[in-house]
């Protein structure tokens, strides 16, 4: 005797999404923690030392947050105007920041009051940084100069004016204390050597440069500006290696992950993109506002993103340990002992063995299908949890009912409430190519069954109206896609006449079918 075969749930992969190791790695972050700052977050810098606190520059303050704290553990508020570019020294003990009025302040991380003030810039200082020896500070300003300051004596060591527009990007070399890279709105990126006192290399970015970044090896340089991200090979004398155009608005910031040196870029288009080592986008974070600044903690523990609306969004990495504790807390079943009770009993030689039949565990809807309770099975499949988190299960039950020829019976005789449930499900998923076929049948049957009584319920009528809109929009979209495909077909046909066979993909056909069925149902809706 064969046992009952449960309903097969088909797991169809979502189109266009491929699961790679990179996506798995970058997906492994918790949902972001949002911290509200007083103004646009212009700079985030992680301390290189162990607790890896990070300084967030926003409006007239610099807040220092601990890795897991949501409240600032320290804040520097002695700015009269907007502060810019707060960055740590290599030992994480000092912090330097520029400001709108042109002053540069140096703070001890444990104190409140500025230790030094460097005055000299006539306009706002947007970027400041320590050189790698830790005794000098370099700053770039809107007055087209950048200056190097001595920390102990607080005097200006040199001032160089080579850029012809605002300086908005700066990256000191970590290997050589005399080297640093600047980027400016005059579309150039320059490498300076303090020993010569002038630029040693100039690269044309082609757009106002928003950010420059050196790879740890310092052979590669990243510059962002406009919609472009460009990688330069410094060892080849500043030759352009790659030019990336993945954002559709200005790329404002870039940083490197510490595991595998993956490049991350953030842009005003509200996306953070992660590239792999061959500069293909492997992952994408979405944010709710334009991104101004971004930083990744050592070991990729935290990704912090600052936005124009003053929100700092912090993503923490998920750890296996967290998951385990979570699941163990959730599961509250009978203990292990219950399951193994009597399992390891060895019968004696002259014992007569009566085997107990193995019980087949079935899902609730399967149990109901087994006893031919079709309406109940559909109700079970339409329960809120299943409907929302596992729509494929609901669809599988619908397909199974259709196969049994009892879908009509299951859909019939429903009240307003349960009909609303079905219609809601249709509204949500009818244009999903994975589910559209069975759901269109459901729509047809529902219309056939309730044609006479639909007008009695305003709720259902409203939903049908919406369904019609959705279907109409979908049909239009399909039409447009077909047109695009037609254009592409002609293009490819003219390009590669020999491979014409190759390009008769199945997509147009299936789209066509889909389109026709969509429009037929929408016509049905219209009639009503």
């Amino acid at each position, binding site marked *: *005797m*064969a*046992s*009952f*075969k*449960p*309903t*097969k749930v*088909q797991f*169809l992969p979502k189109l266009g999404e*491929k*699961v*790679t*190791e990179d996506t798995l790695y970058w997906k492994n972050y918790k949902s972001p923690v949002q911290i509200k700052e007083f103004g646009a977050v212009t700079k985030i810098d992680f301390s290189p030392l162990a607790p890896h606190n990070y300084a967030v520059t926003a409006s007239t303050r610099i807040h220092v947050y601990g890795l897991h704290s949501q409240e600032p553990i320290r804040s520097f508020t002695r700015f009269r105007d907007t502060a810019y570019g707060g960055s740590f020294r290599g030992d994480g003990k000092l912090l330097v920041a520029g400001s709108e009025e042109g002053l540069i302040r140096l703070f001890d991380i444990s104190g409140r009051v500025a230790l030094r003030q460097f005055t000299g810039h006539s306009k706002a200082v947007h970027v400041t940084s320590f050189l790698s020896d830790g005794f000098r500070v370099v700053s770039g300003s809107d007055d087209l100069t950048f200056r190097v300051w001595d920390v102990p004596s607080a005097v200006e060591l040199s001032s160089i004016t080579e850029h012809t527009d605002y300086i908005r990007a700066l990256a000191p070399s970590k290997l050589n204390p005399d080297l640093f890279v600047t980027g400016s709105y005059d579309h150039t990126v320059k490498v300076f050597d303090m020993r010569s006192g002038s630029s040693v290399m100039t690269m044309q970015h082609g757009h106002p440069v928003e950010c420059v970044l050196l790879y740890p090896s310092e052979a590669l340089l990243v510059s962002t500006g406009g919609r472009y991200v460009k990688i330069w090979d410094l060892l080849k004398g500043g030759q352009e290696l790659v030019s990336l155009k993945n954002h559709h608005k200005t790329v404002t910031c870039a940083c490197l992950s510490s595991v595998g040196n993956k490049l991350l870029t953030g842009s005003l288009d509200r996306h953070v993109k992660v590239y792999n080592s061959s500069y293909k986008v492997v992952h994408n974070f979405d944010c709710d506002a334009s991104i101004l600044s971004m930083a990744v903690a050592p070991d990729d523990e935290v990704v912090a993103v600052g936005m124009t609306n003053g929100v700092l969004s912090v993503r923490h990495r998920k750890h296996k340990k967290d998951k385990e504790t979570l699941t163990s807390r959730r599961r509250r079943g009978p203990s292990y002992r219950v399951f193994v009770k009597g399992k390891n009993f060895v019968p004696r030689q002259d014992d007569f063995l009566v085997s107990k039949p193995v019980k087949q565990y079935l899902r609730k809807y399967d149990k109901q*299908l*087994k006893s031919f309770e079709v309406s109940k099975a559909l109700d079970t499949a339409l329960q809120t949890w299943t409907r929302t988190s596992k729509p494929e299960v609901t669809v599988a039950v619908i397909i*199974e009912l259709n*196969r*049994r*020829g009892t879908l009509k019976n299951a859909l019939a005789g429903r009240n307003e409430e349960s009909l609303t449930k079905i219609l809601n499900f249709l509204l949500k998923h009818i244009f999903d190519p994975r589910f559209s*076929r069975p759901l269109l*049948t459901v729509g047809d049957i529902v219309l056939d069954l309730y044609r006479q009584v639909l007008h009695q319920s305003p709720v259902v009528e409203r939903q049908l109206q919406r369904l019609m809109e959705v279907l109409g929009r979908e049909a239009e979209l399909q039409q447009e896609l077909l047109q695009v495909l037609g254009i592409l077909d002609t293009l490819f046909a003219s390009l590669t006449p020999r491979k014409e*066979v*190759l390009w*008769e*993909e*199945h997509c147009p*056909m*299936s789209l066509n*079918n889909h389109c026709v069925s969509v429009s037929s149902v929408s016509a049905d809706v219209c009639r009503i």
Partner: protein
Amino acid sequence: MVETSDIRVVRCGGSKVNLTPPIISSDSRFVLCTSGDLVKVYSTRTEEWLHSLQGHTNQVTGITLNPANHLQVYSCSVDGTVKLWDFIDGILIKTFVIGCPLFAIYVSEKHTGVLFLHVSMATDSKNECFQLVSVHLPKSAEQEVEAKEMSAVSSHISKNPSCTAFGRGGEYIAFARHLQLNVYFFRKQKTYSFSLKATDKKGAKNAFTCIACHPTDDCIATGHEDGKIRLWRNFIHKKEYTYSTQHWHHNAVNTLCFTPEGTHLLSGGIESVLVQWQYGAGNRKEFLPRLGGSILHISASSDGQLFCTSHSDNKITVIESSFKVCGVIQGLVKGDAVLTDLMIDPRSKALVLNGKPGHLQFYSLLRDKHLYNLDIVQQEYIYEAGLDQFEVVKAAFDIKGSWLATVEERGKKSSDLEFFLKLWAFDERTQSFVLNTTITAAHTDRIISMCFSSSEETTMLVTAAEDSQFKAWCQGADADTQQDQNFWSCDFVGSYHKLNPTNCSFSADSSLLAVSFQEVITIWSPDTWEMLTTLCQPPGVIRDLCFGRLSCSKYLLGTTTKNLLCCWNLLTCELEWSTSVDVSKLQPDPFSENVAAFSYQSKHTDLFVFKPSEPRPLFTNKNVCSEKVHRAVFVPREEPLNSCDESTQWLNRSQLYFLTQNMDLLTFSTATEEDRMLSSSKQLVIDDSVAVTPFYLLLGKHRQQQQKLNTQSHPVSDKPQQTQGSVTIKELLHTPAHVLPAASVLCSMFVNSFLISNTGVQQDPLREEMDSEKEEEDSEEEMEACDSQQELRAQGSVDEVTPKLSKAQERELKRVRKTDFSWMAGLIDSKP
């Protein structure tokens, strides 16, 4: 034309076992069922086919146990005879010639020597009128007797044999036809009839479908077309009859059966659920669901311990009284039509075709045994008439048998067609196929044809569908994920002027792929996916397509719907030859150059076997069968024949099986092969029927040891004697006990045969004779006593045993017989 007599068409295995109710022997050890013109005996415990009762010349239509002797069975057949068999040994005891086709047989304990038979009325054969007659069996010692003493009981008999049943102890017989139930009382010689209305209130169909009588109570249970079961009581008084109705089945009740004690009623129908109703307890019932196909017959053993159900999927299920399935006897499942091709599993060499709904069956042709079912659809089958369910329509094996591709389809009638392409990998550990990939929308329309590439290294599948495309599927790694994935994905999509493809085929070395688009054949290179050339021979759409093998690999054969068989030369891309013949199936032999073509002309099918390179066919067989042949397959032989005869040479390495439209599986066999088959089958039967008793184990071990010894020392010289010895033992063991002489007679002989013969000591022959004479005198009286036994021995098989003994043994035996009888007789006499 060579019309040879030594190749003939034979029906091979797989006939229906579900035509009549199976019967269980009274000791519950055997199940008997009809199978074509045989009665097959199966063991209930091992499900093994033991032997068959062979003798009828036409379909056997009924079997029943002889109520007088529970070791005997009556069988009736359309050839107009009733035969009485000893079913344990498979011996035909008697044949009664009735003279007209018989359709069912009933017996009753009360009416010894009388058989009740269904015969068709001779007057109007068109109207299918059946009559129930009783036949008195003449008492005669002859083997073949004509039974002429017939008397009609009733002519209101349904065609369905399950609509007739004997009532309590054979006092009455109940039979139903359409809406009328008749009860004939033997004592009163009267028929009472009760009828139902044509339609009930709810438009239910009231026609009778089956009948069963309670063994001890006056109660008749009837099954109806609408699924109701009625229990009739009090029908002895014609006016005051009552009935109660019970309803569970949603479709017609196919069969009813009371358990021998009458405590339960079993019923079955299309739902394939065995329902057990408690008799007299109203609605209390038990179920045994999902038994397989719809239940056609139920029978119970005489002790009520076992039930047997036979199913529409050619299966008999043995069920214990505790409602546990303990055995399944599965025949070759033949549905309404075989949708897949006949295929050979390259690993097990089993015939593969679709069997149960949604399954592929693997059937061993050599052993005529169902091996296993592979569940392709993996969905719950709903037993409901007229429901459109998934069916396996296409299947293909790759050349090594490690991959299986299947297409399942649903929605032939309705507009929305659903189908899946599935790929199955052979799992070495479980020795079965495991689902690897399911492709949901392989094409946008029905898949027409499917084939695997024939190269050993890379496996590739090509599917051609009605959406005017063909696709190549490959198993390979995905570049993006860098994972070594094992599943299949589309490699190439090809089409030709938006024409619908009709067939596809790979060449033997899989360097070429031929896809036919309506009237045009396109040749592709699977390596580069370039279209190499097109071949065309109008008019007519290409139907079949195959490449030549081995020395004929440069030829491509095609058949068209306009009765044309064409052969192209692929080197010159020209038509080599063509001939006008309506080929319904073209089948190349994978092991030789030969191609078999079945053609259907003027209501019979002809077979031609030819080489593409030669104009003259190797073998022609006119009138193979009267139906069209659409499925055929070459099955490789286990050991090749080495016949040199030109006409039988093509059967040397493989055997051709084909399936007619009436779902008969036929094959060609040669004379030499038949001889071998006959001998081997005999050997087999003997081996199988031996029950494993301690005695057998002892002897078997002894024999095996002997064999081992023999093979070690001098296998050739000892072999004949050894086999002879084993034959004697076998004969001794297999002769039924009741025809053997008493054990006391045999004992000494048997014991002596184990003694080492003392050949070294030569006795004086003269003295021996004198001795024997003396003994003869002594034992004269005793000999008389033994006379009766001697007579028996003359008939029995001991007679056959003795000549086979070696001379030395014989002499020994003689001596033993002479010497030992005196004291043996004393013993025997003293005992009673």
